[in-house]
């Protein structure tokens, strides 16, 4: 059952979540081929070739693929997909954008956001923002699947030597054009992959007060998150939002500060290994899922927290 996996990259290096998708693919079959499509992305093809779980790279280049427009990628993937039984990508904004387009062109009913693979036809996926899990079985001959990357470990990335096969670009429809990408630059680790995340909610009361969160984030080398309420109130940019409509995070430690724990927020963080809640409302739903709850005024607790952390000298970076 050969698998075609679409690598996510920026034409110079591979995006980490591709490795998680490769692990997921390996639960279906060992015959994993990876499509590296882009422009001047030879270094990415080489990087993927070193991943031991990967058998072969299909490498294709064209200026039309430089910005990964779904309209341009879909005809290529459809053409390449012929010998494969499964087509896999990450369920992030990269995979979510083009995969349904590929599925529809192949007349396949896509399975989105898979968190567990039972066998080659049966998958577990969250519905209702993770408030229920559905086990589904596809009767399509070929399956199009997107994988929730945080539900699978990253595959080891060195030691392999897969072959790289150059393939031809296909015609692109020329109906869409890339203008620009504004990436949010930060000194801190990326929210989606950080080992520790500290998030603030409506209880922070202002954007200014997020400096309390930021100083702890700096101390712990953590990413800064926020609830939708804090984003809607304008305290912090929406690229920090954790939840159903924001990012799903699975860090080792998640610290929720002044966050009551609305369903939509819990959907984005409740798979974290250890959850800490700091909230002055002892009845807040966040406490029902927190491993450690501290019922306290955050404006007193956060400075104390920083003091206590400063006393420790063993913070892992």
């Amino acid at each position, binding site marked *: 059952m050969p698998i075609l996996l679409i690598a996510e990259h920026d034409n110079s290096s591979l995006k980490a979540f591709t490795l998680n998708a490769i692990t997921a693919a390996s639960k279906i079959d060992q015959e994993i081929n990876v499509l590296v499509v882009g422009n001047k992305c030879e270094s990415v093809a080489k990087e993927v070739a070193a991943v031991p779980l990967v058998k072969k790279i299909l490498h294709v280049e064209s200026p039309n693929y430089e910005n990964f427009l779904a309209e341009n990628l879909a005809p290529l993937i459809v053409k390449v997909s012929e010998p494969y039984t499964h087509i896999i990508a990450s369920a992030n904004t990269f995979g979510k954008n083009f995969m349904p*387009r590929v599925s529809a062109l192949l007349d396949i009913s896509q399975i989105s956001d898979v968190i567990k693979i039972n066998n080659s036809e049966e998958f577990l996926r969250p519905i209702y923002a*993770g*408030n229920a899990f559905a086990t589904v079985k596809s009767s399509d001959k070929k399956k199009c699947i997107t994988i929730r990357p945080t539900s699978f470990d990253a595959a080891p990335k060195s030691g392999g030597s897969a072959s790289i096969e150059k393939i031809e670009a296909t015609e692109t429809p020329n109906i869409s054009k890339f203008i620009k990408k504004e990436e949010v630059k930060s000194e801190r680790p990326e929210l989606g992959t950080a080992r520790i995340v500290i998030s603030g909610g409506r209880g922070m009361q202002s954007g200014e007060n997020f400096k309390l969160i930021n100083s702890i984030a700096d101390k712990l080398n953590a990413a800064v998150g926020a609830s939708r309420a804090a984003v809607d109130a304008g305290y912090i940019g929406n690229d920090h939002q954790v939840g159903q409509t924001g990012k799903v995070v699975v860090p080792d430690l998640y610290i929720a500060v002044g966050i009551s724990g609305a369903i939509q927020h819990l959907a984005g963080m409740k798979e974290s290994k250890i959850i800490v809640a700091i909230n002055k409302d002892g009845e807040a739903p966040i406490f029902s899922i927190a491993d450690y709850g501290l019922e306290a005024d955050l404006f007193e607790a956060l400075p104390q*927290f920083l003091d206590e952390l400063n006393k420790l000298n063993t913070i892992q970076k």
Partner: protein
Amino acid sequence: MKILVAVKRVIDYNVQIRVKEDGSGVNTENVKMSTNPPDDNAIEEAVKLKEAGKAKEIVAVTIGEEKAQETVRKALAVGADRGIHVKSESYIEPLGIAKILKKIVEKEKPDIVFLGKQAIDDDCNQTGQMLAALLSWPQGTFASKIEHKDKVIKVTREVDEGLETIEINLPAVITCDLRLNEPRFASLPNIMKAKKKPIEQFNAKDLGVDITNRIHQIKVEEPPKRKGGVKVSSVAELVSKLKNEAKVI
């Protein structure tokens, strides 16, 4: 310009859903239902284009059981001109929905189709992209800002790394993010007026498209419960537990 907006009736986002004991799905009996939240943004954006004099007509379409009409009626109350209700008593997968919408598009010939980026029930995030594929139209997914200019539309997209701006030719499919706009509430007079606006009805099975589901839902279960932990009495105790017990700092 003519705009088609697709809306879906789902369990209200404020409702804590309950999984049926027999594992056959989620309980929808006597549960508050509403329009899928980003579909409200889709309607709002269409109405804004009409108010700006760029769109002449807005058609709202839904697919589902008899009561799904309520979502069309709500769209009519905030500014859509007429409605279409494609009736189906059973669940149709996004691919089938996209095929039905394609039929509607071929009949109505809109310049833009707006949809919510994702439905909050099955969380598939597929229908808009699939419709665009079937029509060979470009797609502007997860849109948080749009600028219309003659034959093209500039779409700012919410992507993992930040924001991406693309320019797509019309006709196009656009899927809306919650940040696209602030949906308005319908006024009482407009709700009354909406009752007189026409809603055309079809049966899904009469449209001549293959809407057979290919994904069998074997069971639906509650996610493993996370057991609440302990309450700590001080920050010092918290830090000590994180360091010595959980070993995460």
